[in-house]
Protein backbone atom coordinates (compact mmCIF):
# COMPACT_ATOMS: atom_id res chain seq x y z
CA UNK A 1 0.00 0.00 0.00
CA UNK A 2 1.41 3.36 -1.01
CA UNK A 3 1.87 5.82 1.83
CA UNK A 4 0.98 9.46 1.30
CA UNK A 5 4.42 11.08 1.82
CA UNK A 6 3.04 14.40 3.04
CA UNK A 7 0.80 12.70 5.58
CA UNK A 8 3.62 10.46 6.76
CA UNK A 9 5.97 13.43 7.13
CA UNK A 10 3.63 15.35 9.41
CA UNK A 11 2.74 12.30 11.45
CA UNK A 12 6.44 11.62 12.04
CA UNK A 13 6.73 15.19 13.30
CA UNK A 14 3.78 14.57 15.59
CA UNK A 15 5.29 11.32 16.79
CA UNK A 16 8.56 13.06 17.59
CA UNK A 17 6.76 15.71 19.63
CA UNK A 18 4.80 13.07 21.50
CA UNK A 19 7.90 11.17 22.51
CA UNK A 20 9.34 14.37 23.89
CA UNK A 21 6.37 15.05 26.16
CA UNK A 22 4.21 12.92 28.39
CA UNK A 23 0.61 12.86 27.25
CA UNK A 24 -2.59 12.48 29.25
CA UNK A 25 -5.64 11.62 27.13
CA UNK A 26 -8.10 13.70 29.15
CA UNK A 27 -11.60 14.48 27.91
CA UNK A 28 -12.36 17.93 26.56
CA UNK A 29 -14.31 19.98 29.11
CA UNK A 30 -17.93 20.51 28.08
CA UNK A 31 -17.50 24.28 27.94
CA UNK A 32 -14.51 23.98 25.59
CA UNK A 33 -16.25 21.81 23.04
CA UNK A 34 -16.33 23.26 19.57
CA UNK A 35 -17.98 22.17 16.35
CA UNK A 36 -15.65 22.12 13.36
CA UNK A 37 -18.05 24.69 11.89
CA UNK A 38 -16.05 27.21 13.93
CA UNK A 39 -12.87 26.25 12.07
CA UNK A 40 -14.29 26.80 8.59
CA UNK A 41 -13.72 29.83 6.39
CA UNK A 42 -16.47 32.44 6.10
CA UNK A 43 -17.30 31.19 2.60
CA UNK A 44 -17.83 27.61 3.79
CA UNK A 45 -19.87 28.72 6.77
CA UNK A 46 -22.06 30.76 4.40
CA UNK A 47 -22.43 27.70 2.21
CA UNK A 48 -23.74 25.69 5.17
CA UNK A 49 -26.04 28.40 6.52
CA UNK A 50 -27.61 29.69 3.33
CA UNK A 51 -30.17 27.24 1.89
CA UNK A 52 -29.61 28.86 -1.50
CA UNK A 53 -25.92 27.97 -1.47
CA UNK A 54 -25.94 24.59 0.34
CA UNK A 55 -25.90 21.75 -2.20
CA UNK A 56 -27.06 19.36 0.55
CA UNK A 57 -30.54 20.80 0.16
CA UNK A 58 -30.88 18.77 -3.05
CA UNK A 59 -30.40 15.63 -0.98
CA UNK A 60 -33.01 16.79 1.51
CA UNK A 61 -35.43 17.21 -1.40
CA UNK A 62 -34.47 13.82 -2.84
CA UNK A 63 -34.97 12.31 0.61
CA UNK A 64 -38.40 13.85 0.91
CA UNK A 65 -39.40 12.37 -2.46
CA UNK A 66 -38.19 8.93 -1.39
CA UNK A 67 -39.98 9.35 1.94
CA UNK A 68 -43.30 9.68 0.14
CA UNK A 69 -42.62 6.95 -2.43
CA UNK A 70 -44.35 3.59 -2.02
CA UNK A 71 -41.83 0.78 -2.12
CA UNK A 72 -41.16 -2.85 -1.27
CA UNK A 73 -43.46 -5.84 -1.47
CA UNK A 74 -45.84 -4.23 1.03
CA UNK A 75 -46.03 -1.18 -1.26
CA UNK A 76 -46.08 1.41 1.51
CA UNK A 77 -44.07 4.60 1.95
CA UNK A 78 -42.31 5.98 5.02
CA UNK A 79 -45.00 8.67 4.95
CA UNK A 80 -47.77 6.05 5.36
CA UNK A 81 -46.67 5.53 8.99
CA UNK A 82 -44.67 8.63 9.80
CA UNK A 83 -46.58 11.37 8.01
CA UNK A 84 -45.98 13.21 4.76
CA UNK A 85 -44.01 16.19 6.00
CA UNK A 86 -41.41 14.28 7.99
CA UNK A 87 -41.93 16.63 10.94
CA UNK A 88 -42.67 13.63 13.16
CA UNK A 89 -38.98 12.78 12.79
CA UNK A 90 -38.08 15.88 14.77
CA UNK A 91 -35.70 14.86 17.54
CA UNK A 92 -35.09 11.37 16.15
CA UNK A 93 -31.58 11.90 14.80
CA UNK A 94 -30.39 13.34 18.13
CA UNK A 95 -31.04 9.98 19.79
CA UNK A 96 -29.10 7.72 17.44
CA UNK A 97 -27.22 5.41 17.73
CA UNK A 98 -29.53 3.68 20.16
CA UNK A 99 -30.38 0.22 21.39
CA UNK A 100 -33.58 -1.10 19.82
CA UNK A 101 -34.78 -4.64 20.51
CA UNK A 102 -31.42 -5.44 22.07
CA UNK A 103 -29.35 -4.30 19.07
CA UNK A 104 -27.31 -1.11 18.72
CA UNK A 105 -28.55 0.74 15.64
CA UNK A 106 -27.32 3.77 13.74
CA UNK A 107 -29.84 5.97 11.92
CA UNK A 108 -28.89 4.37 8.58
CA UNK A 109 -29.24 0.94 10.15
CA UNK A 110 -32.67 1.82 11.52
CA UNK A 111 -33.85 3.10 8.13
CA UNK A 112 -32.84 -0.21 6.57
CA UNK A 113 -34.45 -2.13 9.45
CA UNK A 114 -37.72 -0.26 8.87
CA UNK A 115 -37.53 -0.99 5.15
CA UNK A 116 -37.11 -4.70 5.83
CA UNK A 117 -39.78 -5.08 8.48
CA UNK A 118 -42.43 -2.52 7.50
CA UNK A 119 -42.01 -2.24 3.74
CA UNK A 120 -40.51 -5.65 2.92
CA UNK A 121 -37.99 -3.76 0.83
CA UNK A 122 -34.30 -4.49 0.27
CA UNK A 123 -31.69 -2.67 2.31
CA UNK A 124 -30.14 0.43 0.77
CA UNK A 125 -26.37 0.28 0.34
CA UNK A 126 -24.23 2.54 2.52
CA UNK A 127 -23.23 5.74 0.71
CA UNK A 128 -25.86 5.12 -1.96
CA UNK A 129 -27.68 8.24 -3.15
CA UNK A 130 -30.96 6.90 -1.74
CA UNK A 131 -29.71 6.05 1.75
CA UNK A 132 -27.87 9.37 2.01
CA UNK A 133 -30.95 11.25 0.84
CA UNK A 134 -33.25 9.52 3.35
CA UNK A 135 -30.76 9.88 6.21
CA UNK A 136 -30.21 13.56 5.39
CA UNK A 137 -33.96 14.16 5.20
CA UNK A 138 -34.64 12.49 8.55
CA UNK A 139 -31.65 14.02 10.32
CA UNK A 140 -32.37 17.52 9.04
CA UNK A 141 -35.71 17.40 10.87
CA UNK A 142 -33.64 17.71 14.07
CA UNK A 143 -31.58 20.68 12.93
CA UNK A 144 -30.77 22.94 15.86
CA UNK A 145 -31.72 20.40 18.49
CA UNK A 146 -29.18 19.24 21.07
CA UNK A 147 -27.65 15.79 20.68
CA UNK A 148 -29.47 13.70 23.26
CA UNK A 149 -27.30 10.64 23.86
CA UNK A 150 -26.89 9.68 27.52
CA UNK A 151 -25.10 6.74 29.07
CA UNK A 152 -27.71 4.22 30.18
CA UNK A 153 -27.50 0.70 31.64
CA UNK A 154 -28.70 -0.49 28.24
CA UNK A 155 -25.99 1.14 26.10
CA UNK A 156 -23.12 1.33 28.56
CA UNK A 157 -21.30 -1.75 27.27
CA UNK A 158 -21.35 -0.48 23.66
CA UNK A 159 -20.48 3.02 24.79
CA UNK A 160 -17.42 1.81 26.71
CA UNK A 161 -16.33 -0.24 23.71
CA UNK A 162 -16.67 2.83 21.50
CA UNK A 163 -14.62 4.83 24.01
CA UNK A 164 -11.96 2.16 23.89
CA UNK A 165 -11.80 2.37 20.08
CA UNK A 166 -11.42 6.14 20.34
CA UNK A 167 -8.55 5.89 22.79
CA UNK A 168 -6.63 2.91 21.48
CA UNK A 169 -3.79 3.22 18.99
CA UNK A 170 -4.41 1.79 15.55
CA UNK A 171 -2.79 1.34 12.17
CA UNK A 172 0.75 1.37 10.84
CA UNK A 173 1.12 4.90 12.16
CA UNK A 174 -0.01 3.63 15.57
CA UNK A 175 -2.14 6.62 16.49
CA UNK A 176 -5.43 6.83 18.35
CA UNK A 177 -8.30 9.18 17.54
CA UNK A 178 -7.74 10.83 20.91
CA UNK A 179 -4.13 11.72 20.20
CA UNK A 180 -5.19 14.08 17.40
CA UNK A 181 -8.78 15.03 18.21
CA UNK A 182 -8.52 15.32 21.97
CA UNK A 183 -4.92 16.15 22.84
CA UNK A 184 -4.06 18.12 19.73
CA UNK A 185 -7.38 19.62 18.70
CA UNK A 186 -6.80 23.20 17.57
CA UNK A 187 -3.22 22.54 16.47
CA UNK A 188 -2.27 22.15 12.81
CA UNK A 189 -1.69 19.01 10.77
CA UNK A 190 -0.35 19.67 7.29
CA UNK A 191 -1.91 23.13 6.94
CA UNK A 192 -5.33 22.23 8.33
CA UNK A 193 -6.54 22.81 11.87
CA UNK A 194 -7.29 19.59 13.75
CA UNK A 195 -10.96 19.58 14.76
CA UNK A 196 -12.27 18.02 17.95
CA UNK A 197 -14.19 15.63 15.72
CA UNK A 198 -17.77 16.01 16.93
CA UNK A 199 -20.31 14.49 14.51
CA UNK A 200 -22.70 17.42 14.74
CA UNK A 201 -23.53 17.89 11.08
CA UNK A 202 -23.89 14.49 9.49
CA UNK A 203 -24.60 13.54 6.78
CA UNK A 204 -22.39 16.27 5.34
CA UNK A 205 -21.74 17.76 1.93
CA UNK A 206 -17.99 17.41 2.01
CA UNK A 207 -16.21 19.71 -0.40
CA UNK A 208 -13.40 17.20 -0.84
CA UNK A 209 -15.93 14.55 -1.91
CA UNK A 210 -18.04 17.00 -3.93
CA UNK A 211 -21.06 15.08 -2.65
CA UNK A 212 -22.95 13.98 0.49
CA UNK A 213 -21.37 11.40 2.75
CA UNK A 214 -22.00 9.71 6.07
CA UNK A 215 -20.11 9.77 9.34
CA UNK A 216 -18.96 6.23 8.63
CA UNK A 217 -17.36 7.33 5.38
CA UNK A 218 -15.54 10.08 7.23
CA UNK A 219 -14.36 7.68 9.94
CA UNK A 220 -13.06 5.29 7.29
CA UNK A 221 -11.06 8.19 5.79
CA UNK A 222 -9.44 8.79 9.17
CA UNK A 223 -8.64 5.13 9.62
CA UNK A 224 -6.99 4.88 6.21
CA UNK A 225 -5.14 8.07 7.12
CA UNK A 226 -3.35 6.22 9.92
CA UNK A 227 -3.03 3.13 7.70
CA UNK A 228 -5.41 1.09 9.83
CA UNK A 229 -7.84 -1.55 8.66
CA UNK A 230 -11.08 0.36 8.17
CA UNK A 231 -14.17 -0.68 10.09
CA UNK A 232 -16.78 -2.03 7.68
CA UNK A 233 -19.87 0.00 6.83
CA UNK A 234 -22.76 -1.02 9.06
CA UNK A 235 -20.55 -3.00 11.44
CA UNK A 236 -21.02 -3.21 15.20
CA UNK A 237 -17.62 -1.52 15.75
CA UNK A 238 -18.72 1.44 13.63
CA UNK A 239 -21.95 1.76 15.57
CA UNK A 240 -20.08 1.61 18.88
CA UNK A 241 -17.60 4.27 17.81
CA UNK A 242 -20.47 6.43 16.50
CA UNK A 243 -22.29 6.00 19.81
CA UNK A 244 -19.24 7.17 21.75
CA UNK A 245 -18.69 10.15 19.43
CA UNK A 246 -22.31 11.25 19.69
CA UNK A 247 -22.21 10.84 23.48
CA UNK A 248 -19.01 12.91 23.54
CA UNK A 249 -20.91 15.60 21.62
CA UNK A 250 -24.06 15.43 23.80
CA UNK A 251 -25.76 18.75 24.22
CA UNK A 252 -24.19 20.24 21.10
CA UNK A 253 -26.77 21.32 18.49
CA UNK A 254 -27.23 19.25 15.36
CA UNK A 255 -26.29 21.19 12.21
CA UNK A 256 -27.46 18.71 9.60
CA UNK A 257 -27.16 19.07 6.69
CA UNK A 258 -23.66 20.40 7.11
CA UNK A 259 -20.92 21.50 4.77
CA UNK A 260 -17.33 20.57 5.56
CA UNK A 261 -14.07 21.13 3.67
Amino acid at each position, binding site marked *: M*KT*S*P*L*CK*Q*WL*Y*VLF*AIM*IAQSVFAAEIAKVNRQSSYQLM*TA*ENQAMQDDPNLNPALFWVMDGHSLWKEKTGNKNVSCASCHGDSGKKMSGVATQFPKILRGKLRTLEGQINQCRASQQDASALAYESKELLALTTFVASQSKGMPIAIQETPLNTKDLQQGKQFFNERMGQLNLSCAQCHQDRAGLK*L*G*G*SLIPQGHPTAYPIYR*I*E*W*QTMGSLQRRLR*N*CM*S*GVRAKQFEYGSTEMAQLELYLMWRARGMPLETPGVR*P
Partner: protein
Amino acid sequence: MMNLFKLHASSPNLTRRLYLSTLGILGLSTSFAPLSALAKKPEVIEAIAKIVGSNIPRDGRVKLVIPPLVESGNLVVLKVAIQSPMTTIDYVKAVHIISEANPSPNIFTAYFTPRSGRAELTTRVRLADSQRVWAIAQMSDGSYWQGYADTLVTLSACTEMI
Protein backbone atom coordinates in the same frame (compact mmCIF):
# COMPACT_ATOMS: atom_id res chain seq x y z
CA MET B 1 14.58 10.18 15.40
CA MET B 2 15.65 13.83 15.69
CA ASN B 3 17.59 13.57 12.41
CA LEU B 4 14.48 12.28 10.68
CA PHE B 5 12.60 15.24 12.11
CA LYS B 6 15.18 17.70 10.70
CA LEU B 7 15.29 16.03 7.27
CA HIS B 8 11.56 16.08 6.78
CA ALA B 9 11.06 19.55 8.20
CA SER B 10 13.67 21.16 5.96
CA SER B 11 12.32 20.04 2.60
CA PRO B 12 8.57 20.70 2.39
CA ASN B 13 8.77 21.46 -1.33
CA LEU B 14 10.41 18.15 -2.09
CA THR B 15 7.84 16.12 -0.20
CA ARG B 16 5.11 18.24 -1.76
CA ARG B 17 6.42 17.38 -5.23
CA LEU B 18 6.49 13.70 -4.29
CA TYR B 19 2.92 14.00 -3.10
CA LEU B 20 1.87 15.78 -6.27
CA SER B 21 3.49 13.16 -8.47
CA THR B 22 1.66 10.47 -6.53
CA LEU B 23 -1.53 12.34 -7.31
CA GLY B 24 -0.37 12.52 -10.93
CA ILE B 25 -1.70 9.04 -11.55
CA LEU B 26 -5.06 10.35 -10.38
CA GLY B 27 -5.02 12.71 -13.34
CA LEU B 28 -4.32 15.94 -11.48
CA SER B 29 -1.68 18.35 -12.63
CA THR B 30 1.80 16.99 -11.97
CA SER B 31 3.77 20.08 -12.81
CA PHE B 32 4.36 22.45 -9.94
CA ALA B 33 3.53 25.57 -11.93
CA PRO B 34 5.51 28.57 -10.70
CA LEU B 35 3.45 31.65 -9.99
CA SER B 36 5.45 33.95 -12.27
CA ALA B 37 3.68 35.23 -15.37
CA LEU B 38 6.71 34.29 -17.47
CA ALA B 39 6.25 30.52 -17.46
CA LYS B 40 2.77 29.88 -18.92
CA LYS B 41 2.20 26.37 -20.19
CA PRO B 42 1.70 26.02 -23.98
CA GLU B 43 -1.97 24.97 -23.54
CA VAL B 44 -2.61 28.13 -21.55
CA ILE B 45 -0.98 30.36 -24.17
CA GLU B 46 -2.99 28.57 -26.85
CA ALA B 47 -6.26 28.95 -24.94
CA ILE B 48 -5.68 32.68 -24.49
CA ALA B 49 -4.68 33.06 -28.16
CA LYS B 50 -7.95 31.40 -29.20
CA ILE B 51 -9.78 34.11 -27.29
CA VAL B 52 -7.89 37.24 -28.27
CA GLY B 53 -6.51 36.29 -31.68
CA SER B 54 -3.87 38.85 -32.63
CA ASN B 55 -5.12 41.42 -30.11
CA ILE B 56 -3.18 42.19 -26.97
CA PRO B 57 -5.31 42.29 -23.83
CA ARG B 58 -4.83 45.42 -21.74
CA ASP B 59 -4.45 45.30 -17.97
CA GLY B 60 -7.28 46.81 -15.99
CA ARG B 61 -11.07 47.05 -15.69
CA VAL B 62 -11.28 43.35 -14.83
CA LYS B 63 -11.34 42.37 -11.18
CA LEU B 64 -11.01 38.67 -10.35
CA VAL B 65 -11.45 37.65 -6.72
CA ILE B 66 -10.49 34.23 -5.36
CA PRO B 67 -9.63 33.55 -1.70
CA PRO B 68 -5.81 33.89 -1.48
CA LEU B 69 -5.59 30.71 0.59
CA VAL B 70 -7.83 27.74 -0.08
CA GLU B 71 -7.98 24.58 1.97
CA SER B 72 -9.52 22.36 -0.69
CA GLY B 73 -9.20 23.12 -4.39
CA ASN B 74 -12.38 21.17 -5.03
CA LEU B 75 -14.74 24.08 -4.58
CA VAL B 76 -13.41 27.62 -4.68
CA VAL B 77 -15.66 30.67 -4.79
CA LEU B 78 -14.71 32.87 -7.74
CA LYS B 79 -16.05 36.37 -8.36
CA VAL B 80 -15.41 38.46 -11.44
CA ALA B 81 -16.48 42.08 -11.98
CA ILE B 82 -15.71 44.16 -15.07
CA GLN B 83 -16.01 47.94 -15.22
CA SER B 84 -18.40 48.89 -18.02
CA PRO B 85 -21.42 51.18 -18.49
CA MET B 86 -23.28 48.15 -19.92
CA THR B 87 -25.25 50.18 -22.44
CA THR B 88 -26.34 48.93 -25.84
CA ILE B 89 -23.33 50.60 -27.46
CA ASP B 90 -20.73 49.90 -24.76
CA TYR B 91 -20.91 46.63 -22.88
CA VAL B 92 -18.93 43.50 -22.00
CA LYS B 93 -19.64 40.77 -24.51
CA ALA B 94 -17.87 37.93 -22.75
CA VAL B 95 -15.43 37.01 -20.03
CA HIS B 96 -13.23 33.94 -20.22
CA ILE B 97 -11.72 32.38 -17.11
CA ILE B 98 -8.44 30.57 -17.76
CA SER B 99 -6.49 28.48 -15.27
CA GLU B 100 -2.73 28.19 -15.43
CA ALA B 101 -2.45 24.89 -13.59
CA ASN B 102 -5.61 22.86 -14.11
CA PRO B 103 -5.51 19.78 -16.40
CA SER B 104 -7.48 21.86 -18.88
CA PRO B 105 -7.08 25.66 -19.07
CA ASN B 106 -10.68 26.73 -19.71
CA ILE B 107 -12.84 26.98 -16.61
CA PHE B 108 -15.80 28.85 -18.03
CA THR B 109 -16.94 31.61 -20.37
CA ALA B 110 -19.82 33.96 -19.54
CA TYR B 111 -21.65 36.01 -22.16
CA PHE B 112 -23.29 39.23 -21.01
CA THR B 113 -25.78 41.41 -22.84
CA PRO B 114 -26.78 45.08 -22.52
CA ARG B 115 -29.64 43.72 -20.38
CA SER B 116 -27.24 42.33 -17.82
CA GLY B 117 -27.06 45.57 -15.86
CA ARG B 118 -23.68 44.63 -14.39
CA ALA B 119 -20.84 42.61 -15.87
CA GLU B 120 -20.42 40.60 -12.70
CA LEU B 121 -20.81 37.04 -11.65
CA THR B 122 -19.97 34.55 -8.92
CA THR B 123 -19.50 30.83 -9.28
CA ARG B 124 -17.63 27.91 -7.69
CA VAL B 125 -14.68 26.37 -9.51
CA ARG B 126 -12.14 23.58 -9.12
CA LEU B 127 -8.47 24.46 -8.83
CA ALA B 128 -6.01 21.62 -9.09
CA ASP B 129 -3.11 23.42 -7.44
CA SER B 130 -1.77 26.78 -6.29
CA GLN B 131 -1.83 28.98 -9.37
CA ARG B 132 -2.70 32.15 -11.22
CA VAL B 133 -6.16 32.38 -12.73
CA TRP B 134 -6.88 34.81 -15.57
CA ALA B 135 -10.07 36.64 -16.51
CA ILE B 136 -10.05 37.97 -20.07
CA ALA B 137 -12.92 40.23 -21.04
CA GLN B 138 -14.03 40.97 -24.56
CA MET B 139 -15.73 44.34 -25.05
CA SER B 140 -18.34 45.32 -27.60
CA ASP B 141 -15.82 47.70 -29.18
CA GLY B 142 -13.52 44.77 -29.93
CA SER B 143 -10.99 45.52 -27.20
CA TYR B 144 -9.70 42.94 -24.72
CA TRP B 145 -8.94 43.55 -21.05
CA GLN B 146 -7.47 41.22 -18.48
CA GLY B 147 -7.12 40.71 -14.75
CA TYR B 148 -5.80 37.87 -12.62
CA ALA B 149 -5.75 36.43 -9.13
CA ASP B 150 -3.18 34.22 -7.44
CA THR B 151 -4.19 31.59 -4.95
CA LEU B 152 -2.51 29.04 -2.73
CA VAL B 153 -4.26 25.68 -2.56
CA THR B 154 -3.24 23.61 0.45
CA LEU B 155 -3.76 19.90 0.02
CA SER B 156 -5.55 18.02 2.77
CA ALA B 157 -3.19 16.19 5.10
CA CYS B 158 -4.83 12.78 4.61
CA THR B 159 -6.60 11.97 1.33
CA GLU B 160 -9.24 9.32 1.04
CA MET B 161 -8.54 5.74 0.10
CA ILE B 162 -11.88 4.14 -0.77
